[in-house]
Structure formats: structure tokens, C-alpha cells
């Protein structure tokens, strides 16, 4: 057998393979900075981020307790608050005004079933984050509502409030790319390692 003539080479290959495997495991299965997928993943996330930072997403993924509204992301009128379950406060529940569908009247409230904010214990807050921290927040189950990357894909593909972003009703802009393109880039980001920009790339 040929390999028995070169036992050191075989050992080097095994050790090298092990180091590589160890590196992937230590990065949680993500592409390392040396991976050929890394740059592709970063490019995909930059496109994903252009959607996440649009008013349709950011107006509800807020840092405080008051949602924003409109393309200018002004603080929601009427002193609306997140409340204990993300669905508002007594006598000011989100669905008191927001119905299962968009109002057809100018300046009327947008709507989808179970209109709400993220709950206070899983805020998924993106407001004010740079692209690096936005990426890390999205990827971290402790900050993304306990979702794996597979569950994140399902969320952006199927969630009714996410899909509403592309059907926001009169007077509201849509994100910069289509929902199909958003989902495709999101999947590409995940499948290429869910890489996030490094500190130097804020």
C-alpha cells in the first residue's frame, strides 16, 4: 500500500484536517475569515441589512418601548407602548386600531393579524446598531427570540408581519429589494456561514 511508504505525510494530513475541523467547530459551524465563503456571506448580509434597516422592519425592532411610524420613523403618536407582552397596554392594545389588513384610507393604520412588537423579554432590538452588531444580534439566539439560523430563514420567509413589509399599505415605502430576493440573500448568508463583519468593519 502506497500510504504505508509515507506515514508522516498521512499524519500531517490527518492533523491538518483535524485542525480545520476543530476551527469550524469552534466557530459554531460558521465560515472563518479564511474561508472562501466568508466574503460571499458578508456580501449577502450587507444586502440583508439593507432590508433590516428599512423603516418597515426598524419601526418595530426598537430599543425602547415606543414604536416608530412612517417612513420618517417618528415616534408613534398616542404614547403607544410595548406593554408586558408586546401587544400594548390596557385600553391601548395594538389591535385596538391595527386590524387584520391595512386600512384603505390615507393615514389609516396598517394591519396584519396579531399586530405587535417583540415582547419585552425578547426585544430583538436593532435600532441604533451598526451593521456588525445588527448581524451579531440577528445571529445570537439569546437576542433573536431563541431562533436557530434555520428558524430565522423560516421567519423571514413566512412570518406574516415580515411579509407585510412588502405590502405596507398607502403611503409607506417597501424595502429596497423584493421579498423573494431578501429571502434568497438571507439563505445565502446562512449557507455561506452566517458571517458577520469584524470590529474593523463597523
Amino acid at each position: 500500500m502506497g500510504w504505508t511508504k509515507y506515514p508522516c505525510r498521512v499524519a500531517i494530513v490527518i492533523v491538518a484536517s483535524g485542525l480545520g475541523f476543530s476551527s469550524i467547530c469552534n466557530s459554531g459551524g460558521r465560515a472563518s475569515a479564511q474561508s472562501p465563503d466568508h466574503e460571499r456571506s458578508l456580501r449577502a448580509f450587507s444586502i440583508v441589512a439593507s432590508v433590516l434597516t428599512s423603516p418597515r422592519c426598524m419601526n418595530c425592532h426598537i430599543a425602547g418601548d415606543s414604536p416608530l411610524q412612517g417612513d420618517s420613523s417618528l415616534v408613534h403618536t398616542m404614547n403607544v407602548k410595548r406593554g408586558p407582552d408586546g401587544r400594548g397596554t390596557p385600553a391601548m392594545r395594538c389591535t385596538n386600531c391595527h386590524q387584520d389588513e391595512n386600512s384603505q384610507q390615507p393615514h389609516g393604520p396598517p394591519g396584519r393579524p396579531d399586530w405587535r412588537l417583540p415582547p419585552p423579554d425578547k426585544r430583538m432590538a436593532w435600532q441604533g446598531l451598526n451593521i456588525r452588531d445588527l448581524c451579531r444580534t440577528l445571529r445570537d439566539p439569546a437576542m433573536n427570540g431563541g431562533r436557530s439560523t434555520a428558524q430565522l430563514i423560516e421567519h423571514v420567509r413566512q412570518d406574516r408581519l415580515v411579509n407585510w413589509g412588502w405590502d405596507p399599505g398607502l403611503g409607506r415605502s417597501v424595502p429596497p429589494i423584493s421579498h423573494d430576493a431578501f429571502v434568497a440573500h438571507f439563505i445565502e448568508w446562512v449557507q455561506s456561514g452566517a458571517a458577520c463583519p469584524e470590529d474593523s468593519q463597523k
Partner: protein
Amino acid sequence: MIETTAKTTLTVNGKQRVVDADPRTPLLWVLRDHLDLTGTKYGCGIGQCGACTVILEGDAVRSCQVLLSRAAGKQITTIEGLSNDRSHPVQQAWLMEQVPQCGYCQSGQIIATAVLLSSNRNPSDAEIDDALSGNICRCGTYHRIRRAVHRAAEIARSR
């Protein structure tokens, strides 16, 4: 758009009512035009002022935004159904504090207060502000409204 009417059953102020209307009719117009319950007011028509507030299954909804189809089979309480003898704590407090000036927004203010007190028997000023900030009063009776909410809470707790 073609209007199609259908018979829809609601429970309004404890009574079962059947209305023949387009299921996309706002609840406000069903209450006012079909059931002649005109205590609920039309203010802005876009859910911005609170004048049309009624109770739908315990929530203080804006009836100008709620379609009849959402209200089908549900329990609805309007200002006329809060009590039949003005004995509801919020009605009592509103009389004692002489809250209204023009009065147009007051049925919405009273309904929203009743919903607040159903879940919070002793609200703070901040909690009152949170609950009632969606009910606009152009006369600016907010100071009397807040006083009346505290008084209504006292009356409710004493019963």
C-alpha cells in the same frame, strides 16, 4: 367595489342583534346606522382620535377601523350599555367631576376608562396617560378626565 350584504349576528350591550350589511362595513356605522346606537361618535375615521371607542371582547377598539366581519359573534359594549341607570363607577365619577365641555369625545374617554379599570383598579397618573393617550379631547379636559379616572377607581374599589 361591489357591495354584498350578509346577515351577521352580534351581541351588543347584552342583546343579540342581527344586521344585514356588507361584512366590510366599519362597526361604527353598523352601531350608528343599523342599530341606532348614536352615543358612539365619528371623529376622524382613521383610528387617530378615539371618539368611536367601544368595548369588543374586553378591548377598547376603535370602531371606525373594526370591520363588521371581525365583530361577528362577539360581545360589544357601547356607551349605552355601560349601565342602564348611570350607575357605572365611571359614569358616576364623570358626573361628580363634571368632566365634559363639548362632550363629543367623552363616550370614547369613558369607554377607554372602563377598560382600563377592568384590568387595573388603582391606576397611577402614568398608567392613565398610557391608557387614554389615544383619546383626544379638543376642549382640553384632560385634567378633569384624570381626576375622574381616579375617582372612578375609588368608587369601584368601594363597591
